[in-house]
Every structure is written in C-alpha cells, then in structure tokens.
C-alpha cells in the first residue's frame, strides 16, 4: 500500500515519535507536517497517522476537527484569513472582507476556481494594533486598505 504522505514527511514523523515520552504527544506536530505537505489533512492520512501513533482514527479525526486551523478538505494555495473580531471590525474589517469577496469573486468560506485563494473570516489573530488585518498562510498583514490588498495579492504566485 502506498503511503498517503511523502516518504520525506513519513521520515520526519518517525523522527517526531521518538521525541515524546508519550507517543500521542506527537500527534499535533505530525498533523502540522501533513498539512504542510498536502495543504489539508485527508482521511487516509488521519488513518495512517492513527496507526503510526497507536490511537484510533476516530480520535485523530476528533483532534483535527477540534482545531479550525487544520483543514479537512483541500483549500486554495493561499489561505486568506480576515480577522473579524471587534478591534478589526471597528477599523473596517467589514469593507476589507467585502473588497476581497468582490475582487476574488467568491464568498467567505469559498475558494477561487483556479485553486489559488481561499477566503475565511476568523476570530482575533492577536494583531489588533495593526487592525484591520488578515493572515495569509503563516504571514500577517496589517493596516489594510484596498491599494495594499491589491499589492499583497499581486505579490503572491
């Protein structure tokens, strides 16, 4: 049976397993590795990691569903997460979101047909001082306005 992850990820996960006194502790970092490779965590990968760590597939799926940052279905290459919590909302998160929806031609929660962008509304990302802000994959971008949004999106491949 072929592995649901690359041999490189598999090897990295093996390395993780030895680092924790309880194997179960390796689950979260392992899930991050899988998501880094695949962009999301497919069911087969949950099954695979469950077997590797010695927990049930149901438990892994439960953990994945607990954290909204783990994706259960494929998403765009660039995940735009717009903070919609109070400080950002007061500083114009609503129009940031509206602009993005118009510009990308998708609703929040959606993915562009070319698979480039996924747009999400999220709660506070801890960068209220730069409100309104969003995060794309691991990067934060603050003090957003339409011009800056255009420039940021244009810089992404």
């Amino acid at each position, binding site marked *: 049976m072929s592995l649901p992850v690359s041999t490189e990820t598999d090897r990295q996960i093996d390395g993780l397993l030895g680092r924790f006194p309880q194997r179960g502790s390796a689950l979260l970092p392992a899930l991050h590795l899988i998501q880094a490779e695949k962009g999301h965590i497919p069911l087969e990968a949950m099954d695979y990691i469950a077997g590797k760590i010695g927990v049930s597939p149901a438990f892994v*799926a*439960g953990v994945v569903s*607990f954290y909204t940052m783990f994706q259960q279905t494929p998403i765009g290459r660039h995940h735009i997460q717009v903070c919609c919590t109070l400080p950002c909302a007061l500083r114009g998160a609503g129009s940031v979101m509206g602009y993005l929806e118009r510009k990308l031609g998708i609703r929040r929660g959606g993915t562009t047909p070319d698979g480039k962008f996924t747009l999400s509304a999220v709660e506070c990302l801890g960068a209220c001082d730069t409100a309104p802000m969003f995060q794309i994959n691991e990067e934060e971008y603050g003090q957003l306005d339409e011009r800056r949004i255009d420039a940021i999106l244009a810089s992404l491949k």
Partner: protein
Amino acid sequence: MPDPTPPLPPAGPDEVALLIDDRPVVVRKGTTVLRAAEAAGLLIPHYCYHPGLSIAGNCRMCLIEIDKVPKLQIGCATAATQGMVVRTATPRVKTAREGIMEFLLINHPLDCPICDQAGECRLQQYEAAYGAGTSRFTDEKVHWPKRYDIGRSVVFDAERCIKCTRCIRFCDEISKSRELALFQRGDHAIIGTFPGKPLDNPYSGNTVDVCPVGALTWKPFRFKARVWFLRDVPSACAGCARGCNVNLGTYRNRVHRMTPRANLEVNRYWMCDAGRQSYAALTEQPRFERPLARPATDASEPIPWDEAVERAAALLREAVAAGADGVAAIVSARLSLEDLHVTQRALQAIGIGRVAVAPHEEGQDDHLLLRRDKTPNARGAALVGLGAPNAGRVKEILEDVSSGRVRGLLVVGEDPIGDGLIPASDLRRLPALVAIDWWKSPTVEAAGVALPACGYGEWEGTLVNFEGRAQRCRAALKPQGETEPVWRILAALARPFGFGAEYASASAVFDEAAAGIPALAGMSYRSLGTGGAKLKGA
C-alpha cells in the same frame, strides 16, 4: 465551644477515615470521595463517572465542598484523605448543581415524551432532585441530528447528548474497538465516528446502557415500551458459556429487552450484542405449543398431553424391548441443571444407556465475555452425569440411526436435522423418534411424538457457567400454549417405567440434585440468590 462534628473512627494502615455530611466513613486509601460517600449511603449525583470506566471528570455534576479547600471539588476524581471533612449538600454545592443542570439543558430539546430513555434518564432524575426547575434561556435552541445511525444497532440523538464521553470510554477501554470520539469543540462538540468506521463491535449495546441520557438508543428497543412498565426479571443469559447476568425487561408476557445486570465475578457491567438480542428467538422462531404425533405417513397433528406421553412411552418401550443397544438419546447442554438432572434419572428409568450431549461451538473466546462454547450449561451436563458435550458421540449415534442399528431416539432440546448432522429422511424412518423442544424445529416435525417445552424466559432453573458458577434463570413469562418445563416432561415420560420422583418446582429438583452431587454440596436453590455461587473446587 466544643467541636460539633462527630469524632473520626479509627482507620487501619491502608485506610483513611473522613466525614461526609457528618457521617464517619472508613475507606481504603485512594478511594474517591464519590465512592466513599456511596459507602456511607450517600449519593453524589454524577453523569460521567461510571464504576466500570476510567474517570473523566467532565460533567461537574459531582461537585462537593471540602473544608479548608477554597473551591468546590469534583467528588469522582478527588481522593478521600485522612480527616477530610466533606459536605455534599451545602448552599454552594446546590447552586453549583443548579447551574450545571441549567447548562446541560440549555439546548436540550426536552423531548422526553418521545424518548426511550424517559423514566431512567439521569437528566430527568437530577433535574427533579437538584435542578432549579426553570431555565433563563430564551433564545432559539441549537439543533443537531436526531436520528443518526451511528452503528449497526445504535441510534444517536446529538441533541440529547451531554458529552459525558462514557460511550467513547467504553469503546476505548472495554470493547477496545475505539470507534467513537468527540469531534469539534465548545457548543459544537459532538460524538462521532471516523468516516466508514461506524460503531459496530460485538458489545456496542453497552454504549446505550452507559449513556446516562437518551442520546444513544438500542434500535431493536426503540419505541417498543415505556421503561416504567417493564418488570426487570433477574436472570442469566443462555447465549454462551459465560452466563452474563441480565435483566429481562418484561411487559404483558413479553420480553422487550435484555440488559446486563452487574456481577463483578461474571460479566462486570456488560453483555454482548448477540446475548442482548437472544430473547427475540422466542418470538421470531416458529413456536411449538401443543404435543404432536405423526402417524406413520401423515403430517403431525396435535394431541392431548396424556395421550402424547403415553404414545411416546410406548414407542420408547418397544425400542428398548428390541435391545438396549438400539436406543439412544441426544441431550442439549442448553437445558437447565434441573432439566439435565431429571433427564439423567429418567433415561436410567427408561433404560436408555447410550447418551450424547451435543456441543455447539462458534468463533473463539474473546478478550471480554464471549465464549466459543455456545452452550450455557456444559458444566451442568457433566455434573449430573450425562457427560460433557461430545461431538463424536453424537455423530456415532446418528450414524447408527442412518444404518438402522439405532431404532429408538430421544432428542431433548437439540435439532440434528436443522444442524445438518443427519438427513431428515433418516430420522423420519426411525420407528421411535421422540423429540422435546420449545420451537418447531425440523427434528420436532420429523418426530413420531413431539412434546413442547418452555422456552428461555419461560422456564426457571440453574445454569453452570464455564467457570463453575451456578446461576439462576428466573421465569419472566408465562409459558406459551401447553408447554411444560423439560424436567416435568421427562419425569412424566419416565413414570410408566417406574420413575417415582415427583417435583413441585425447579427448586425441588435443584435441591435433590444438590444432595447427590458433591460439587453442589450445601447449596440450595435459594442460596444461589441473584449473583449465583461457585461450585465446590471451582
């Protein structure tokens, strides 16, 4: 001012003494406050704690106050310590419980009128006993799937679930099948399974038992009966050699469900799904209610008992007269000890020396309860002197039937035709075939005379499990039609052969058997109680 609290009793080296609501208790070190309170006769209300599962401490219903500890503590996970002073009903505790109840019920659909759990639901019991009785929540409740087939035999209603995780822990720790998990979080949290891996293990019904509310229901029992009408009759399961202790939930002369009855020595708190549904055979299989006789060529027809017994005795007498080698008996190890004891004596009186007890084996002994031996009373058959189940002996007898060497056969509770051990035509040819069973088996239909017996749930008697524990099955139902217990049928059948013993009840048979069998010495039917008793030397 003198100390108003009562003095602590002395505690041994492995024990601690504490006060719970001013009651002095001594328990082993490491005992939780909840268990210590139980020992003192006090109930600390709880949802997630279950004596057969690990401690989760998530429902917070068991909050109690401990002197010198600033915050309320959960009784299920707090160890009792020497000199601890616990209070379970202070205003703070009461307020906390009211709060917990209000939270648990905030999104609850309050659909008790259509809920199978109603009447044995912890939410109902505790709301009545500890709740504030009202809710301050005026918004629309959150809705969730209500009829979700979470497994082969279990239906999940997510709106009623309180996320106590008992069901998950059962699957992780007891059945070890690990199908269930908690998904999402906060008020989105929901019990679920991995896609394509539903709740489907040989013990799945226990999740329904441990679920303290109506979130998990047992499909075959859904909407069948209100539980307060059911009379729980304590019995033992006859599905395999374990003999799990059970309750037969009975209403209007019908068993509606079978649930495990705790016995730490036998099945702890559990039973298997096959056993749980075993009562259904009584209504699903064609019942045999009146004695039948088959004149040489015709199909069998009902006849009165007296005549049936006379004809059966006459058939056997002729066969015995033609030579003792020419008669044999095949006896079931699914019969009670009482049945088997009288069978053994009756066979002697009739003059049938060749006897085989039929084995029924399937699968393997598993890690929990299920036994490969599907007969519940193989030990009993050996005890009364009929011998242990022996496939070879059954085979020999049937071969001799086919070859014509055996001309008379008494079959008690077995169905060699249905089990594929012999062609129906061979048995039909027998000059003397007498069959005794509770259902209209192919063997019953082939018999010259067939006598109808009580089925499981109808008879009283004792089973001896594979560990040598004698356990009582109690009758939950009135016998259908004209059926009789096997021991009474055999006594009647042997009477024309000079068998003199008369028994008023199964208990009289047991006491007679006990007097003659060393392993049962000193036991009486009554002394078996509801938990059974181990044989001498077992």
